[in-house]
């Protein structure tokens, strides 16, 4: 077990380093970054000045080492657009994205798990088919389009919920629902599959032979075992949702890091872009490690040395 954890940790560190390289090289793809920053109307002189000011005239390896060393110290460089430290920008924007991601995850889990359990306990019935059909429909729904439809419908026709910004907590509801939508089908299928397996298992027969109540059989005995893979996938999904929130933040005008990244891409503000890529990757890696740890806690067979 310890060996396994150490291997996972080593892999995670290696991946972190690679991501560092990737996010750095990503922004150098265009060839000459200075030209991109300067924009189409700049003169050759402007470009030369920019190149010198941003240190882009140094060899790539020097630039990378310089950036990586600073990044490790928490200094992610300065935004060209905002003329402020990238770390400060991210610190201001990150809470919005995190709250949005967690809202989405909570909505997704609160929808997917009960529906998956219900479908499994009614396996093969019309209800089961209906629920699986919803999963299929949800999977095919383009999330940005769903966001727009919800804005038209809720925000304008019904006027129940705010459709942009997060001045109040209600502002998180619609974007949270849209974000949850992308994770619900997978979580629901997984819950259902796990529950179908668990309900057919010998220990459920034992639980029934012991005369336990239906609630105890389904929720305590079956769901506990079916939940283990769901927990790992939920952590991974949260990572995907934080990465995917860029679309939803732009639609609902939420000023999180996704919105920040989108603005920065449009304005060639590459220190911000590469920092957000790095940050999201690190969060994802941390979440997968967390999922492993949670599974070790949930599954007594893994807990043992």
């Amino acid at each position: 077990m310890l060996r396994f954890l150490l291997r996972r940790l080593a892999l995670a560190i290696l991946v972190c380093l690679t991501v560092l390289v990737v996010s750095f090289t990503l922004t150098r793809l265009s060839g000459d970054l200075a030209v991109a920053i300067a924009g189409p109307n700049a003169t050759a002189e402007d470009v030369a000045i920019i190149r010198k000011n941003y240190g882009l005239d140094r060899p790539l390896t020097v630039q990378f080492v310089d950036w990586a060393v600073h990044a490790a110290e928490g200094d992610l460089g300065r935004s060209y657009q905002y003329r402020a430290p990238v770390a400060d920008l991210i610190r201001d924007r990150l809470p919005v994205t995190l709250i949005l991601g967690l809202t989405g995850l909570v909505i997704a889990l609160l929808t997917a798990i009960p529906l998956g359990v219900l479908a499994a306990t009614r396996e093969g019935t019309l209800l089961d088919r209906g629920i699986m059909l919803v999963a299929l429909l949800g999977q095919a729904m383009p999330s940005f389009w769903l966001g727009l439809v919800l804005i038209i419908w809720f925000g304008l026709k019904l006027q129940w919920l705010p459709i942009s910004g997060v001045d109040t907590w209600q502002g998180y509801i619609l974007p949270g629902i849209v974000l949850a939508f992308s994770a619900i089908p997978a979580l629901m299928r997984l819950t259902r599959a796990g529950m179908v397996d668990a309900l057919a298992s010998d220990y459920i027969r034992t639980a029934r032979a012991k005369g336990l109540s239906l609630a105890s059989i389904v929720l305590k005995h079956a769901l506990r075992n079916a939940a283990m893979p769901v927990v790992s996938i939920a952590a991974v999904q949260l990572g995907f949702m934080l990465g995917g929130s860029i679309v939803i933040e732009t639609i609902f005008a939420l000023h999180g890091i996704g919105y920040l990244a989108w603005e920065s891409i449009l304005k060639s503000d590459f220190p911000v872009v590469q920092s957000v890529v790095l940050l999201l990757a690190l969060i994802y890696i941390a979440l997968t490690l967390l999922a492993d740890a949670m599974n070790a806690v949930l599954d007594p067979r893994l807990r043992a040395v």
Partner: protein
Amino acid sequence: MSPVLEVSNLRVRFGQTAAVRGVSLRIQRGESHCLVGESGCGKSVTALAVMGLLARGAERQADVLRFHDHDLSQLNERGMSRLRGDKLAMIFQEPMTSLNPAYTIGSQMTEVLARHRRIDRRAARERAAELLGRVGITAPGLRLGQYPHQLSGGLRQRVMIATALLCDPELLIADEPTTALDVTVQAQILRLLQRLQRELGLALLLITHDLGIVARMAQRVSVMYAGQVVESAPVKALFAAPTHPYTRGLLECIPVPGTSRRDLPLGSIPGTVPRIAPGFVGCGFRDRCAQAAEVCAGTVPTQRMADDHAYLCRLAPGWSAAA
């Protein structure tokens, strides 16, 4: 004396398969009754039908299905669950998978008491520890805190037995409880069941395919074939005068020291248990039976060797002596 369990003409269908076709059983207090037969003959289905644990889609019918003064055929799932684990207990063949891997032994035992008895946690734990001791588990306090994967198969089956006995059941159904275990562990578990049955005055319905276990454990035996009890008798009478051709075939498959001749091959029954569709008439064994005749395709009579020894066959009681 009224029996603990009385079953009359029990029928179970799974879609187009008639798994149990008119089984009748009576088990008295303190009696151990063995249900014996090849796999697929409907022994386990009979037990699950009594417990109300049949898979969804199964249809159960019976003229009488009575446990003490409870008419089981009239009880809904809620009512059944009140009896199960309390007065009516069952253990299974697969000790390795029959315990929930996610919970400790203690948790899985005390939840039974929490369900059926109004007692506090400490008393429940003490009761669980007491029963673990009773089934021969040393250091019960330690075991209560352990998880199933930390226990061997034999220990897990002991835990299953202890759990089944928590609420002083009157009937214990044991479905092939030792089949998955090593031979030495098998003997220990059987001895344990025997002792507990004597001490607690349990009625035991033991399901097995092993005639050696029958000889050792049973007072009464019902031989099942293709969803029917083809012969039922006290254990001594059955071994002394097996009358149904299938029972005779089964007995010829076991070597008995001193009686079987070395130069003759051990008997075996050719063929396998057929799948019976609803509406099937006649003897289910006729395709494999050496004595089969045309009348075997018609209704088969129940005949008696003695008051307590019945069998389901056209052949007259003394046929085997003449053969």
